[in-house]
């Protein structure tokens, strides 16, 4: 039932609005709405009950294991939520004077410093509100850099074919042409393709490392040399930073720009799809272009750096200063982890991934890059299974739901057919991984013995398989009272 179906005309929730009506004096009738909007007329209990029950229809980290490649679904510490929601933090207006926010600004400054150290970058701006916006800002800085040098002909961004879709989409949003380069059999970027692609038009290369194939680009130093020698800059997509946190700094690999998905590596909540937060880091030569505002410190007093101090900044990308509440959560998380804890993130994310890869291989699954170490994720391909049985990666994914596990990422990266990108994250225990392997083995047996059971999955969810095609063809995006 939809919340609107609980409603009755004239029902009101009396505690949640002023007890009286008030005058709209001064607002001429022509400006006033004539028909009330379709907000539900329900009681407070209706609302609480409806949304509590809806919530129970979700999988979540707090209830299930999400081996979701490229998404780094790890435990979101409850303290991060509690402390970021302290009333003074929640109540602070974004335009309140700096001296009424020194506690908050201190946290932001500390976070910048920590992220600088972790990434090996010279400067950090916390402004970007999501990974894709981090990318946009990163590529804008590359553009601004070249333009500031009068280097106007650099119109191309190179992107490996394994990259996230956001990489090429972002490059285009920044007015660049995308040059896609191939991956070799071992899962590395094809160096010859890269060499062929670079040239005077190269503005930069966007790279995820470890890549979305779950392997570390062994030739990254060489790639960096090739791109830099061609006059381009290197962009680090921080989607997989969790795999190397404390082990390798992107700055040391030669990257000039980076974005960091705090909702991945720094465990801020995914929230059913946002809010994200993606600070950008830059090497020294890009410092002038960092988006404002960010925080500076002088004699223990914190203040915003704005356009005034940074005239070359690419400017502002949000109405205020980014997703402050998310940044606070990330800050609390890094302080809980500390120096040593941060190092262990990569170690145990990697241990979990390699263990799971080894066990699934033993169970009979085909690993896409079997000779490589898994970074914090790895790929299983069902191509052979599909050819023989017709069972697809999507079928297996849905069947996993029945067994109480969220599905791995499917059909990404696109270049591996029928793939499952599996990332267990460091916060899951061996027992959970073993239970997942058991479920995968059971499904493998089911594929052989009763493939239709798998093809028609899920069976135990609140609903059976949903019709995506109908959804897109017969668009129904809003409930209507008479529908």
């Amino acid at each position: 039932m939809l919340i609107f179906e609980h409603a009755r005309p004239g029902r009101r929730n009396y505690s949640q609005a002023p007890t009286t009506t008030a005058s709209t004096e001064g607002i001429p009738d022509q400006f006033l709405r004539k028909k009330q909007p379709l907000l539900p007329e329900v009681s407070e209990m209706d609302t609480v009950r409806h949304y509590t029950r809806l919530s129970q229809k979700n999988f979540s980290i707090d209830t299930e294991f999400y081996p979701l490649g490229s998404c780094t679904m790890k435990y979101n510490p409850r303290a991060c939520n509690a402390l970021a929601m302290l009333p003074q933090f929640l109540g602070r207006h974004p335009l309140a004077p700096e001296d009424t926010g020194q506690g908050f600004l201190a946290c932001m400054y500390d976070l910048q410093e920590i992220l600088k150290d972790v990434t090996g970058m010279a400067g950090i701006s916390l402004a970007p509100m999501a990974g894709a916006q981090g990318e946009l800002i990163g590529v804008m800085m590359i553009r601004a850099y070249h333009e500031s040098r009068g280097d106007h002909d650099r119109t191309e961004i190179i992107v490996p074919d394994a990259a996230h879709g956001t990489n090429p989409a972002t490059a285009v949003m920044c007015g660049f042409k995308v040059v896609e380069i191939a991956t070799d059999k071992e899962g590395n970027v094809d160096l010859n393709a890269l060499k062929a692609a670079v040239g005077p038009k190269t503005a930069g290369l966007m790279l995820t490392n470890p890549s979305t194939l779950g392997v570390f680009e062994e030739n990254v130093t060489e790639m960096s040399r090739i791109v830099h020698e061609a006059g381009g800059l290197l962009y680090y997509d921080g989607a997989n930073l969790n795999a190397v946190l404390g082990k390798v700094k992107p700055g040391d690999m030669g990257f000039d720009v980076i974005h960091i998905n705090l909702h991945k590596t720094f465990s801020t909540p995914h929230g059913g799809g946002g809010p994200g937060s993606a600070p950008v880091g830059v090497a020294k030569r890009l410092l002038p272009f960092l988006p404002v505002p960010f925080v500076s410190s002088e004699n223990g007093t914190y203040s915003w750096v704005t356009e005034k101090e940074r005239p070359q900044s690419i400017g502002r990308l949000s109405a205020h200063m980014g997703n402050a509440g998310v940044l606070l959560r990330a800050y609390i998380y890094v302080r809980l982890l500390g120096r040593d804890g941060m190092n262990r993130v990569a170690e145990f994310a990697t241990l979990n991934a390699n263990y799971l890869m080894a066990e699934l291989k033993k169970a009979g699954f085909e690993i896409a890059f079997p000779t490589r170490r898994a970074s914090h994720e790895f790929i299983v391909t069902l191509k052979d299974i599909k050819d023989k049985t017709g069972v697809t990666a999507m079928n297996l994914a849905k069947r996993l739901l029945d067994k109480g596990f969220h599905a791995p990422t499917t059909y990404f990266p696109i270049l591996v057919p029928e793939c499952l990108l599996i990332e267990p994250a460091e916060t899951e225990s061996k027992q959970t991984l073993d239970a997942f392997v058991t479920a995968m083995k059971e499904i493998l047996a089911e594929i052989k013995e009763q493939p239709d059971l798998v093809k028609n999955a899920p069976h135990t969810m609140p609903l059976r398989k949903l019709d995506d095609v109908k959804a897109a063809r017969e668009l129904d995006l809003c409930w209507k009272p008479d529908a």
Partner: protein
Amino acid sequence: MPFIPHTQDDIAEMLASIGSDSIETLFDEIPDDLRSGRLNNVPPGLSEMEISRLMMERAAQDGFYQNFIGAGAYDHHIPAAVWQITTRGEFYSSYTPYQAEASQGTLQLLYEYQTMMASLTGMDASNASLYDGATALAEAVLMAVRSHRSSRRILMPQTVHPVYKKVVRAIVSNQKIDIVEAPFCAESGRVLPESLEKFDDEEFAAIVIPQPNFFGVLEQVNELTDWAHRKKTLAIGVVNPVSLALLTPPGEWGSNGADIAVGEGQPLGIPLSSGGPYFGFMACKNNLIRQIPGRIIGRTNDLDGKQGFVLTLQAREQHIRRSKATSNICTNQGLMVTAATIYMSLLGPDGLRRVAEHSHANTMDLLQQLEKISGVKKVFNSPFFHEAALKLPKPVNLVLARMKEKGILAGFDLQAFYPEMGDTLLVCATETKTAADIQNYVTQFEQALK
């Protein structure tokens, strides 16, 4: 090892299965010279007790103030139920609902959100949210240009939130879109429809129409919308969602209604929290639906014909279309929209209207009392909603500093964006302010002006 559950036995068994003798071996594909040393600027780990103490001390340092600043972010009462439900693990720690069958909670909620926002704005459809109000406006501009095809120019009144304008410029200038500014009338504080005559011969993809505008003033939205439509220009409304409980929705502006409505969702149950996370909303008419960026939820059936909800129109998106996507966006502000949906459900149409009415009446009350003080006067003579500009006889920064000492953040100094306006204060009193609060403001203000 905070948040890592592995025992020594686990580690040994796992390494044995892998066939490695140490965790370190698993990193052997990383060239040695790339391995980083110690993280010297990361402090040692704290226990939850220790970080709690630290954060409480920092929060205490920031204190509590009576806030009369608006300027795009508004201090409304948030019912306790909103965040108690929103932070339930199943909403808080769930992923983007790609696996629809395991995400009906989030998906149905987003569909309900889309319904509420479409109705609030008077449009046909809404997406499932964008980052914030400023970027929503930028996306609306990109959308208008995609749909218009023959023009890459946008008419942008100076009464639009100045930071929104900056953000739009920063984003759309990458795609060689021109922003043309339209001036406002210094007496009325709004764009005079007749002042647009000078643009009659120019082609624009869209005009942006703020309602209320940055000064709180009500624009002549009907006339502006009709002017745009006469020119085959799209009308983009930038609106405050709480105001829409009271004011004519963009979908009903002029003869045919605006084409796109966007705005900042923060007033709908989202705490001020230093500026984020908030969420941007975007709604549009039917003919533009396939141009809309961001997530969209559709209702469909499952194999048994039971109603269910899925992400739809994904063919627009970056993970399918890559370089040909309508936008690079792949995150909505899911959790914020969860809160906003619960907020709107708790308030209902009547409750939200009362919030709007009281916010307006309180600001009106404050203004009427302040105007009695010698030298203080309203800058504009137009109707407004819940926020207004005042001319002061003393430097605004001085007055603000004195008020702050009394625990009051008295408003926003308009000189920051409009230096030509002189000592002008933008002030807003929402429904959270009592008569006593307003009286106290007035008393302190009189003192501060002495």
